């Protein structure tokens, strides 16, 4: 059986779904499935899970980029073959976990990983800044306001010491989305880095009627900001700029409506969100910095603002307090004071249900 380009239906297989997960388990996982009793973090990035049977599995967690090559995957395979019987997994946050069934191979694995320069940093467990989850950015997306892999690399370089240590009051989850469509949802992160467009699309009237279907463009706008318009003899559209929410949907339907702009686009920072139900319920991230200009290749202003927020939190929070718990305790007025970030009109919500966020009490701190 080989692929026949002239007959796609020949031997065609569809709808088989993913392979069943358990065929990739190391034997000790298979044998102790559902029987795990407790775990311990032996050092940052190194975990042991102990079963009711007394069996153990060790895990070494390493950070990687989300964007990785087949070469890197092959390197990872070589390591997993040597120390893990060929078994490994990825976490939700783009970390790799090497699964060590034979304890005698744990230290040699750690030593090997450390000997490979900056390819495989060990950490991301416990009260650390673990890997940043992010979207595609300039690497592969058509509507991003900012890059993703670049700022993530720059931020993680700066926060590196927090990846491989447990010195924060609690875990800190950072996420980046390159536009507000958030194909990677960042709205419940301790610190969210979010790309924003600030200029509505411009209309290339002479192209619109050739490359776009006007009814579909109009229908694509979530806020009904686009109307048909005749310009000279050309069928085109006009955009009510004040209604634009910068989603890029119209650009997807009609490439004659570009919205990317090197000066208009930039980074906003959001803080205090979380998804876990631990102690306090899940929380959304709230606006900390409305706009930072783009600064490739190292995004210095973004990096230093993120670090400032993180270190203000680290200095002020109590043990087990997430960023949002800490801010709720000290109050937003104190957050802006201590972090040195400016508070402006942009911070005051003016979208639907905005009044839920206004202060309706005389209780505040001077």
């Amino acid at each position, binding site marked *: 059986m080989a692929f026949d380009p002239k007959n796609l239906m020949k031997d065609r297989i569809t709808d088989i779904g993913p392979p069943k*997960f358990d065929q990739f388990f190391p034997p000790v996982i298979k044998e102790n499935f559902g029987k795990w009793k407790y775990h311990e973090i032996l050092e940052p990035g190194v975990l042991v899970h102990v079963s009711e049977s007394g069996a153990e599995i060790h895990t070494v967690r390493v950070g990687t980029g989300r964007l990785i090559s087949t070469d890197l995957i092959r390197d990872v395979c070589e390591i997993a073959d040597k120390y893990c019987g*060929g078994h490994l997994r990825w976490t939700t946050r783009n970390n790799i976990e090497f699964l060590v069934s034979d304890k005698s191979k744990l230290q040699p694995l750690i030593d090997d990983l450390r000997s490979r320069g900056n390819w495989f940093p060990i950490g991301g467990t416990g009260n650390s800044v673990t890997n940043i989850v992010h979207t595609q950015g300039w690497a592969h997306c058509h509507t991003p306001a900012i890059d993703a892999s670049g700022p993530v690399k720059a931020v993680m370089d700066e926060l590196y010491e927090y990846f491989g240590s447990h010195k924060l009051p609690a875990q800190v989850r950072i996420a980046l989305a390159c536009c507000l469509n958030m194909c990677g949802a960042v709205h419940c992160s301790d610190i969210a880095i979010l790309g924003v467009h600030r200029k509505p699309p411009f209309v290339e009237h002479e192209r619109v009627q050739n490359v776009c279907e006007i009814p579909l463009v109009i229908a694509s706008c979530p806020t009904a900001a686009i109307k048909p318009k005749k310009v000279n003899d050309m069928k085109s559209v006009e955009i009510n700029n004040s209604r634009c929410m910068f989603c890029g949907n119209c650009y997807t339907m009609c490439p004659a409506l570009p919205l990317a702009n090197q000066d208009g686009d930039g980074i906003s920072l959001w803080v205090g969100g979380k*998804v876990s139900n631990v102690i306090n319920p899940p929380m959304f991230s709230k606006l900390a910095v409305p706009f930072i200009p783009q600064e490739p290749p190292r995004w210095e202003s973004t990096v230093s603002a993120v670090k400032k927020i993180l270190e203000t939190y680290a200095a002020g929070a109590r043990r087990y307090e997430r960023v949002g718990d800490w801010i709720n305790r000290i109050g937003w007025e104190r957050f802006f004071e201590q972090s040195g970030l400016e508070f402006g009109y942009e911070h005051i919500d003016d979208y639907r249900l905005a009044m839920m966020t206004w202060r309706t009490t005389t209780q505040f701190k001077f």
Partner: protein
Amino acid sequence: MALKHATPMLDELEKGPWPSFVTDVKRLAAKGNKMCEDWLGLMELSFKDKETHWKHGGIVGVLGYGGGVIGRYADRPDLFPGVAHFHTVRVNQPSAKYYTTDVLRKICDLWDARGSGLTNMHGSTGDIVLLGTTTDQLEPLFYDLTHDLGMDLGGSGSNMRTPEGCLGKSRCEWSCIDTQEIIHDITMEYQDALHRPMFPYKFKFKASGCPCDCVAAIARSDCSIIGTWRDKIRIDQEAVRAYVGGELSPHAGAGGTEKRAFDIKEEVLDLCPTRCMDWDGKNLKIWDEDCTRCMHCIRVMPRALRPGVDTGASILVGAKAPILEGAQLSSLVIPFMKMEPPFGEFKEFVEKMWDWWMEQGKNRERLGETIQRLTLREFLKVCDLSADPRMVSTPRYNPYIFYDPADVPGGWEHDEKAFRERHQA
């Protein structure tokens, strides 16, 4: 060997202690991979221009599939012909992302032969994302994927998206449900919905084994399945004393592995959101009826406390990122449901929910927005769920109750004559 394009800005990202995607891609480019060479050039141009250089294209998948591939084209094919066409392929990951090196190498071989060699391990939704191939490679790639690897495409567009779960019982003592089995089962059951669009918009399932919610189900899935228990937290009193005595490191070492004094009152009892615990110096007492299962005490003393054994899931619906009506977290609609294969009760619920959303949902409206527009009451009714105080953080505080005439004696009809006999006009 010098690469085709100079990349002075990208090169700055080869510095620093964190792994560099630039170094990684350059390594592949240096082996003569033309797509990677031009990808680096295009990326460098974006760094210079501070704008993306990709365009969208409407292709969706392979023959008969309405998802799994995203069309992508460079807007400077004149400068970077190697990435003129650079489509994304989403491959459905095995539940919880366990692999053997054998299957990973097969993926690498396939992708080196049929695409750029660049990947995301993994995309935000959970898929293995293969970045960058041409249209003519899609069908042969799909053939190899299904025949040689036994793998299939994931979702995109108005499909059920690739479901995702935490690692569950495979390596976590807190998991109250078999998230991997649930996710695999849903994925297999609803292959048609995954591959052929029928919904008003995307629909995501995510399953976390416990309320820590490691896959962020509550924030980013239309249907969030979160493990919980309804009996008592299991206590090993001797281990509690060991924590208090400083023999065990608290928080499983998450706050540092060094031995330290542990104040159970300050670190556990006083942080319990319902204050449902007491420590008399010898024994820990938990009033489980007041416990809201936040996991804090269990996380801090994992060798002493464990979730109960009467386990199942809380089902919440409607989470989404901000577009359009603003971000929403999922809302609780089924406080507790047993989750055992073949998950019949759960699937009945899912199908009622989908029927309603397909009929009532507007185009590009996520489930959470349809519920917001047509009310939670309506959603509960069509799904045959009764109202329960657990579903709200507070009862309504506006008095505008839209009564159903069926609930009022005589419906909306008045006996006008009888009224006027009682009252003069």
